[in-house]
């Protein structure tokens, strides 16, 4: 009862109309009538969204924020949660003048939608391989969220299918297109070798305890539909990441992004992995995958071993998420989290060595000037000054996935090369999925070079 009342009080749509009428500073441009009837220009891409949940919505929002000139048209939205996810996304797309059709079944979508150019897949992991392969076979380019699949076999099929179809398959490891990450990996580590000899790598994604995801009672999916799409219950549908056979657990959900950075920045794949993990906090019945996992990889770089540690803890959020590269001359901490990336010079390394990289524009430096004048004094004595600090010239000031999606669409248009094509995505998928095997095996597993090849 009371909700009705407040809805009346703050009915948003009518409110927004009155806000528009109030008008100060508002440009009341009429909706352009030609827009909807406009025929597809050569550069415009027709896109289907498969999976309109939290991540699907992030990707869709990001596509919208690229602006109308970028030429993305959503023609179809596919989600089995029609009353909630699908409805929400269709409504939002309408605001931005897209007129997509809604589907529950992706097969029906592929049957009916004949002018699609690309699909964005953000469904639960166990659906990725089947849907990606079907979309590629139907002649679509595919942007598929990580993890490629919940199984190595599934991921392998995706790579093969991309090769056979000649269509593009981009894996949603968006850090691969992040200018800060590209700068750190390509310029600072590989080109400048600013950290000296890399000794160790350390990454983590820790987050706090939270209740299982629920769903609004009145929008529950019926049991027959749930089962048709591989879920035993609404609870399993909402919390698929925790179930064996559906997701890969936190090591895959979180680690997939970051362990990919280990491979990328070290420019190789590991020789071995050992890992320990378990469901030690949550109820094992509905948290089949490990709620905390720690893994150690051994990489061989120039006949030396670099050990890389990764942990994900789902019941304590200490220090959040980052990847840290430690060399004998410095430390690089890089993270997608706003403003938390940093780089430090080891004290013994002369500042002059890094000054060169500052001059070349690889780094910014904040430093107190050593002298106030150019007389011959050795020092100017004054109030205590702060030590020199370094910062990055690159900023990540666009939505997290924007550049990665743009890279995908530009590659379709022949204007770019994929930053995370299937074969690269596969190497990291193998690297990450083997952690769960290592936990189960309880011993060190060695990788063979052919493990990473399709």
């Amino acid at each position, binding site marked *: *009862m009371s909700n009705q009342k407040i809805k009346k009080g703050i009915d948003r749509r009518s409110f927004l109309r009155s806000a528009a009428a109030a008008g100060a500073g508002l440009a009341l441009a009429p909706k352009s009538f030609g827009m909807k009837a406009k025929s597809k220009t050569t550069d415009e891409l027709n896109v289907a969204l498969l999976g309109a949940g939290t991540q699907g919505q992030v990707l869709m929002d990001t596509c*919208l924020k690229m602006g109308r000139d970028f030429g993305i048209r959503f023609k179809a939205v596919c989600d089995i949660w029609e009353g909630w996810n699908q409805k929400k996304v269709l409504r939002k797309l309408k605001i931005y003048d897209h007129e997509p059709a809604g589907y529950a079944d992706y097969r029906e979508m592929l049957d009916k939608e004949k002018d699609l150019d690309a699909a964005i897949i953000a469904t639960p992991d166990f659906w990725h391989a089947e849907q990606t392969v079907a979309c590629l076979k139907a002649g679509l380019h595919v942007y598929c969220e990580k993890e490629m699949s919940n199984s190595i076999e599934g991921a392998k099929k995706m790579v093969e299918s991309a090769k056979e179809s000649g269509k593009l398959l981009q894996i949603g490891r968006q850090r691969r297109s992040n200018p800060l990450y590209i700068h750190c990996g390509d310029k600072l580590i590989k080109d400048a070798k600013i950290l000296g000899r890399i000794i160790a790598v350390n990454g983590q994604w820790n987050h706090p305890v939270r*209740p299982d995801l629920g769903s609004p009672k009145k929008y529950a999916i019926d049991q027959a539909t749930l089962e048709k799409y591989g879920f035993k219950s609404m609870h399993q549908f909402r919390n698929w990441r925790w179930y064996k056979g559906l997701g890969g657990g936190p090591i895959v959900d979180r680690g997939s992004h970051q362990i990919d950075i280990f491979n990328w920045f070290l420019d190789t794949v590991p020789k071995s992995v050992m890992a320990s993990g378990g469901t030690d906090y949550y109820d094992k019945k509905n948290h089949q995958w490990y709620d905390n996992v720690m893994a150690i990889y051994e990489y061989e770089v120039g006949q030396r071993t670099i050990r890389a540690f990764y942990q994900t803890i789902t019941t304590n959020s200490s220090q959040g998420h980052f990847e840290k590269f430690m060399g004998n001359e410095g430390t690089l901490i890089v993270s997608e989290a706003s403003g938390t990336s940093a780089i430090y010079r080891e004290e013994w390394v002369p500042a002059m060595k890094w000054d060169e990289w500052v001059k070349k524009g690889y780094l910014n430096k904040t430093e107190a000037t050593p002298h106030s004048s150019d007389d011959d004094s050795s020092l100017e004595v004054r109030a205590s000054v702060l030590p020199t600090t370094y910062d990055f010239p690159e900023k990540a000031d666009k939505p997290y996935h924007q550049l990665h999606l743009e890279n995908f669409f530009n590659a379709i248009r022949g204007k770019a090369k994929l930053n995370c094509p299937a074969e690269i995505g596969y190497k990291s998928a193998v690297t990450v999925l083997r952690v769960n095997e290592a936990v189960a095996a309880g011993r060190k597993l060695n990788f063979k070079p052919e493990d990473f090849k399709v």
Partner: protein
Amino acid sequence: MVLTPTGSHRFCHKAMTTTFEIFTVHTDARYAQQAAWAAFDELDRLERELSRFIENSDISRLNNLTAGQSLLVGPAAFECLQLCVRMYAETNGAFDITIGSLMDCWVGKDKTMRTPSKEQLNLARQHTGLHLIKLDEAQHTVQLLGKGVQIDLGGIGKGYAIDRMAELLGDWSIDTALIHGGYSSVLALGKPPGTKGWPVTLNNPGNRKQSLVRLYLQDRAVSGSGLQKGRYIIDPRTAQLVEGKRAAWAYGPDAATADALSTAFMVMSPDEVEQYCCRHSDVLSMIVTKGRDTETQKDKILRFGSWNDSGLLK
């Protein structure tokens, strides 16, 4: 806060540099908790869109634009800016989200106050005002018409987020809830069973033991603003510091409006606040003005709008 002992739940979450809480009365504790977390997830999402401290938020992207450029933004930022435009017009410029440049004139990087020159203030005033922001409803784009415009939704973002959280709780069939952001923005959904509303107190910041108003909140919002230690308030219309008030509260139909109005009421003169409440019968206000000399002139407590008819007061 007095709650019915059975079936009452309280959840908290940090966001927007403060703590948000949701109180609910519901028979299913687990369901209530999941609903609250869904609302907090929405709050976090909104913060990523609206915070000027997050480098890729819609607001940060707008603040990075040069004069004349326009940008397509998400629905949250667009709606919030529409609201800001309305509140700017309704308060004759007292509520202004572009006050950043003026603030920089008065408050240094070390957060101490300084006295700017006339020239500095005139320059900053050129970067101030909602007339510099053009919203295109058909395209969902925002254009900045002047240079150096810095948008800060600090005076409305919490309220806006609370309204959206309430909407989500409604979708979850949660009819009885109280949501607050850092105690300064509060929205009530329904009322606990067997009560007249969610009991809420407004106290005198000069003497927090002195309760000025106790009210029963139901399907309405109330928001408070005040002069916190080390913080300054500037009147965007005069570019001068505001020093005459200790606190202001606004009671209104939704949390975003109340949030914006309590900010504006700190800046507006008592006469202006009175006129605003006359024109908007769904808004009530209370302000505490500062006595110039505590010996001879005491703080004044002024109430505007139909507080007594509202049946709110305890």
